[in-house]
């Protein structure tokens, strides 16, 4: 019998949940009827958890989908909420950029069922390579409340609360997470999961309020709604509260999200009791609560990651209630990267003129730097992308331009390939390639993944055809959204509810768009990829190649679960001339050079049997390794 997923454990239990899982539990406890998402780290486990419990969702009558992109996910969740069903939609911060066109009018239109929008920021860019973005602005632009949980228990509680606020005010509510909230595990106390209201009905009773003049009236109304929530929030002791309230101190700290826990850790290490105002409501700000906290202080330390938003707000508020207040923050901390206890201690050390507490250590930074050689992310052994990049590079002119996009294939930015000339947004590989092809005589080759193709590259492709430019577009189709953890997409053949569906073929879509030269090749067949790339390279019109090969990581996991042994390769030392093609130009992490003799070998523990190194070896020195037994 299948084990009960921890997210659907019974009421009264204490379980360890990831922040993202706790958001799902909160939604379930709030009676969510509809969930949609486009995966993006650090938010990806929210949709993955809904997907994992799809059988439970079926029993409850509720629904989950992996949408084609964040805008689709946002609109779908809005449709459910318009019809009176509670909905949740999740994405990473960049996702809200994609969805923003449909997001900002939502509060103007209003929702009937509670609607929660989860956005996950990534201070320090652990899994984001486009910009270091602060999602807190979204709430202010869109006139929507935003809650900031700090740990898994709050992820659950705040998500539940967000549904109530949303229904009370009739506007969607944001939950803002960061990497160290999404990806932190902790103990969560479970409450009851009610039978959700999963069926709704759309009645066209809204008052044209997204058109002027009602739109302008609604704008004023929205400011009133935020004031109403502000008043409610001043009384809520779970959302915003003061720790060490009774400490006699003319110095105080204000923190939001996970930074609150770093502050508490730092104070523990200093053995200090200083009042800390923890803000769970990022928008609208509980101004009275802040005012009464800062009134009697001489100094206040604002601890917030990314932009100095609270800091400028506190400075503004202090002008009225405590003009002499010394507001400290970013100058003692950092504008970029994530915070840690160490950083807070450093700041506190400066403010309080105290020595930072440290355990005795013989650590030598120089030695550490020398031995801990950098280990950049690389394509997995047997990755179809490595093979495609290798083949395309072989056939490309020296001054070729390589359009980069978002997916596992960003790793192509590193050596030995260096074939991702930019990383801007999903779809910008082909999109920017078009502009370059219009003004430059260089050969432009744009890469795009399968999920990215559906997500954001289709209008770009149409633009290439319509406005007649000539990039070669290479679709890297591994039939799964690999980078964010193997979520199904329209090319996979399975839905978020675990149902079979006909996979969409990228080549058919490209053909329908009017692309004349469209080909499909097998990523693991080097000769086939090279021949097609060579043929298309000389064309002066746009061309489209689908390089199809299953994600090897997923394939290997599947084989392991089935108990199937995948053959591994070895190098025949008598044939190998140590030319280095496989090691330096292909760069498979399973291939190594032995010291001190310089012999090449394949590590059998990490060879995933794709056979491509054998195809590219000029001496044909690779062969299938036979079991010794």
């Amino acid at each position, binding site marked *: 019998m299948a084990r009960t997923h921890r997210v659907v454990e019974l009421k009264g239990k*204490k379980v360890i949940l990831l922040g993202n899982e706790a958001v799902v539990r909160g939604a379930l406890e709030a009676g969510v009827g509809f969930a949609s998402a486009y995966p993006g780290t650090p938010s990806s486990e929210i949709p993955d958890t809904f997907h994992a419990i799809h059988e439970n969702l079926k029993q409850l009558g509720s629904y989950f989908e992996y949408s084609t992109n964040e805008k689709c996910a946002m609109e779908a969740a809005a449709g459910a909420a318009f019809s009176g069903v509670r909905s949740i939609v999740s994405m990473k911060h960049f996702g809200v950029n994609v969805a923003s066109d449909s997001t900002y009018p939502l509060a103007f239109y209003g929702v009937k069922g509670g609607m929660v929008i989860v956005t996950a920021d990534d201070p320090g860019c652990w899994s984001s390579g486009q910009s270091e973005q602060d999602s807190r602005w979204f709430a202010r632009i869109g006139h929507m409340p935003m809650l900031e949980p700090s740990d898994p228990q709050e992820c659950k509680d705040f998500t539940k609360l967000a549904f109530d606020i949303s229904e009370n005010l009739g506007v969607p509510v944001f939950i803002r997470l960061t990497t160290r909230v999404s990806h932190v595990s902790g*103990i969560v106390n479970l409450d009851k999961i009610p039978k959700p209201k999963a069926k709704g009905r759309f009645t066209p009773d809204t008052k044209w309020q997204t058109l002027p003049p009602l739109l302008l009236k609604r704008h004023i109304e929205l400011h009133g709604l935020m004031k109403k929530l502000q008043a409610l929030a001043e009384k809520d002791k779970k959302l915003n509260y003061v720790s060490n309230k009774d400490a006699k101190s003319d110095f105080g700290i204000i923190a939001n999200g996970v930074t609150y826990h770093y502050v508490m850790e730092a104070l523990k290490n200093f053995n200090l009791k200083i009042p800390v105002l923890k803000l769970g409501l990022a928008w609208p700000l509980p101004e009275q609560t802040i005012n009464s906290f800062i009134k009697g202080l001489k100094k206040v330390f604002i601890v917030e990651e990314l932009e100095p938003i609270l800091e400028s707000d506190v400075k503004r508020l202090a002008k009225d209630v405590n003009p002499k207040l010394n507001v400290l923050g970013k100058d003692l901390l950092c504008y970029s990267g994530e915070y840690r206890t160490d950083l807070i201690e450093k700041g506190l050390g400066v403010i309080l003129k105290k020595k930072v507490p440290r355990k005795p250590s*013989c650590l030598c930074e120089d030695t550490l730097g020398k*031995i801990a050689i950098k*280990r950049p*992310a690389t394509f997995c052994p047997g990755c179809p992308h490595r093979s495609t990049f290798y083949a395309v590079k072989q056939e490309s002119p020296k001054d070729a331009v390589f359009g980069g996009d978002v997916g596992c294939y960003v790793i192509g930015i590193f050596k*030995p390939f260096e074939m991702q000339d930019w990383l801007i947004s999903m779809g910008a590989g082909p999109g920017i390639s078009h502009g370059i092809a219009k003004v430059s005589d260089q050969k432009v080759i744009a890469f795009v993944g399968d999920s990215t193709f559906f997500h954001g590259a289709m209008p770009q492709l149409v633009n290439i055809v319509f406005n007649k430019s000539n990039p070669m577009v290479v679709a890297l189709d591994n039939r799964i959204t690999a*980078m964010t953890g193997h979520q199904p997409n329209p090319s996979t053949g399975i839905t978020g509810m675990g149902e079979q569906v006909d996979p969409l073929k990228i080549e058919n879509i490209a053909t329908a768009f009017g692309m004349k030269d469209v080909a499909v090749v097998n990523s693991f067949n080097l000769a086939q990829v090279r021949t097609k790339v060579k043929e298309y390279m000389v064309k002066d019109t746009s061309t489209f190649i689908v390089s199809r090969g299953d994600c090897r990581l997923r394939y290997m996991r599947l084989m392991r679960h089935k108990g199937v042994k995948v053959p591994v390769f070895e190098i025949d030392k008598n044939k190998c001339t140590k030319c280095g093609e496989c090691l330096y130009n292909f760069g498979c992490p399973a291939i190594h050079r032995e010291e001190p003799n310089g012999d090449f070998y394949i590590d059998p523990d990490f060879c995933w049997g794709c056979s491509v190194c054998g195809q590219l070896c000029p001496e044909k020195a690779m062969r299938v390794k036979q079991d010794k037994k």
Partner: protein
Amino acid sequence: MKKLDKFDMVICGVGGQGVLTVAGIVARAALVEGYNIKAAELHGLAMRFGALETHLRFGNNIHSPLIKSGEADLIISLEPVEAVRASRYSNNDTNYVFDQKEFIPNVVHREKKKYPGVKEVVKTLKEFSPKGKVFDIPASDLARKEFGNVVAANIVLLGKAVGEGLLPLKKQSIFKAMEQVLPSKFLEPNKKIFEVGFKLK
């Protein structure tokens, strides 16, 4: 319940080696023993064979999910050089258990660098942590022998850490936690491979 203020542990290795599985097991074992726990995991790009680090904290007085530098009580590493990378969290008493199996990044070959061997790693860790214990064990070799695959090396290391008393949790609690997180068909083999590490001299 034991009065334990805090226990700070780093589990690290190369993405894909099973770092998160160990963290999940230890966290649940700590809950079984009644502690508060916080674990910080890293996902995303780091999974693709890059350096991966997980922080696990348990005890009755913990706030931050991340370990402060110099506070780690135990570092378990699935790769020798990664143990050194994690030593920025070490102090003079930190204990180490790591797998001898090297995973040399391609950049070392391409730039013709020298990859530090296990001996050099042990020497460095002993310098960094003069009062701590350093165990380098052939976890991957043992996993391959007993399990048929190196993926279970993480459990061998965990067994060794518990067996040496470097992780203040009971074997029974670890087994209870395994029952909660591992697929049922892999449960018994994992318990067996844990014992291999536990009894390893």
